[in-house]
């Protein structure tokens, strides 16, 4: 029995106030593709140590809009890299070859029809719950999937009755 104190158990209800922004259009698709390394491989190790100014631990949850208001206000405390990466995304036009190439790569990795179009199947795949670790990172040659080094066929059994 979950521990609750309020009669209506509202205190154990999962507050759904923080809904993740869904990927709904090509702009948000670009941010998605950039975040997970389909535009430029992400240096995930560096991200961990990139110092975010201020004391992020004590501030409240900064929803996307708050963050955007920061950016719009040109708040200098937002780190360069953060605005840079967003800038990088914005610089891609929705029909740019870079966008189409990144989209195709995502579709291929996700086992989707590789259309190069931001179609419904692709949108749904982008909104599936997922791990935050990028799919493509610097220094990692995804071409040599570690699977390739391992014979996936189970050894022949010389079983006999």
């Amino acid at each position: 029995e979950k521990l609750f104190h309020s009669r209506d158990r509202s205190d154990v209800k999962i507050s759904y106030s923080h809904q993740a922004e869904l990927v709904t259009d090509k702009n948000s698709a670009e941010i998605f593709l950039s975040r997970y390394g389909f535009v430029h491989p992400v240096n995930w190790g560096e991200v961990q140590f990139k110092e975010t100014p201020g004391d992020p631990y004590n501030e409240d949850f900064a929803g996307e809009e708050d963050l955007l208001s920061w950016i719009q206000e040109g708040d200098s405390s937002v780190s360069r890299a953060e605005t840079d990466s967003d800038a990088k995304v914005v610089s891609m036009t929705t029909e740019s070859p870079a966008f189409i190439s990144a989209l195709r790569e995502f579709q291929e990795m996700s086992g989707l029809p590789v259309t190069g179009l931001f179609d419904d199947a692709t949108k749904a795949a982008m909104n599936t719950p997922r791990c935050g670790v990028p799919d493509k990172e610097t220094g990692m040659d995804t071409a040599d999937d570690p699977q390739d080094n391992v014979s996936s066929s189970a050894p022949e059994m010389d079983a006999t009755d």
Partner: protein
Amino acid sequence: KPHNHLTSSAPKIGRREVRGQEWGHMAFSKTVLKWRLIGEGYSSQLTIEDQRQIFGVAFRMWSEVTPLEFVEDTRSPLEDVDIRLGFGTGRHLGCNQKFDGTGREFAHAWFLGDIHFDDDEHFTAPNTGSGISLLKVAVHEIGHVLGLPHIYRTGSIMQPSYLPQESGFEMDWTDRKAIQHLYGGCSGRFNTVFDWIRKERTQHGEAVVRFNTYFMRDGWYWLYENRNNRTRYGDPVALQVGWHGIPTDGVDACVHVWNRKADTDAVYFFKGTQYWRYDNDNDRVFTVDPEGHHYPRPISEGFPGIPSPIDTVFYDRRDSHMYFFRGTNVYAFSVAANRLSRGFPRKITAVFPALTSGDHPGGNIDAAYFSYTHNAVFLFKDTRFWRVVGGRDRQRRPFQPRNGLMPHREVEEQWFDICNVHPSALKV
């Protein structure tokens, strides 16, 4: 302050060998790793006990298929803990990558061993219906910390997107080989290996004979699923869980003596100077068997002429003899006559000669095992095994000596994923 813990987790020489900041490399150079659910990172959705228990299972699943062992450490200084797990929402735990709220990103992992879970997601304990299985996500993120990248293969636990958990998900063959590609397979000595045979009736009432293969080491054992080339999910388990009444710290040998014709059917466990007979029907050792013998019983009484302790023993149905091994000698014991065979003991090298000069275990055999799967006898010593030339081999190559030993191979090349877990995880 929590924020500091991330800076304190800056790469420490010796604490963890970080070979470049990228997946696809072995991340740890030691085999026993400490983990902790950090105090400032408890989830608000599950009891702390549930969170720790689920993480314990997740680490155990990796331990069952790698040489790594994981132990929960709630006392050492945080910088001595190799893998730190915590829940948070939005900007969390001093992390640079804020979470996005309910939906989409549910967790991430960092090279230096930090794993964060978005507490805005609805995480659930295994097999409790809807929501995101915390166990499945934890296994995935631990895979990252151990060095695995995303793997785009249906069925892989390392797929980037979450697929609702089919009941009782497990790690498949390819994921196992991917992590073993980084850390190698599992090897070690065994006290005994044997096939346990039993007669059953199908639902149509027909009598069938079935067998299961067991590997035993110290106080725990694995059931090996030959058809799946792996151990049973969730093994090893403590001996007393599955074999009631045998010494809990391990045995020297086990043998199943049975003959369809002579309706002999007895399973014996040996330890030191004593032995036990196992009551298959009641799944425990006999205290008194149908012949009125009390157990444990001195080996010298039940098998006159056999010294103790023994190294190991196997039963050869071809000649209805038990072959006891001790030091460099082998003793053939006639079950029917209940006595040592004439001319024994003999040197192991004489009865089981090496096919390749010098490639022979010599003596102090760990286990002698007749496998119904391979229809062959194997001698195990340390991490190696030697296959004994059988009748069929000699039909094809008559020049091979009877009971000759083929060149050795590594056990892990033929029997896969027989991996230890940390003793503290045995209860998990």
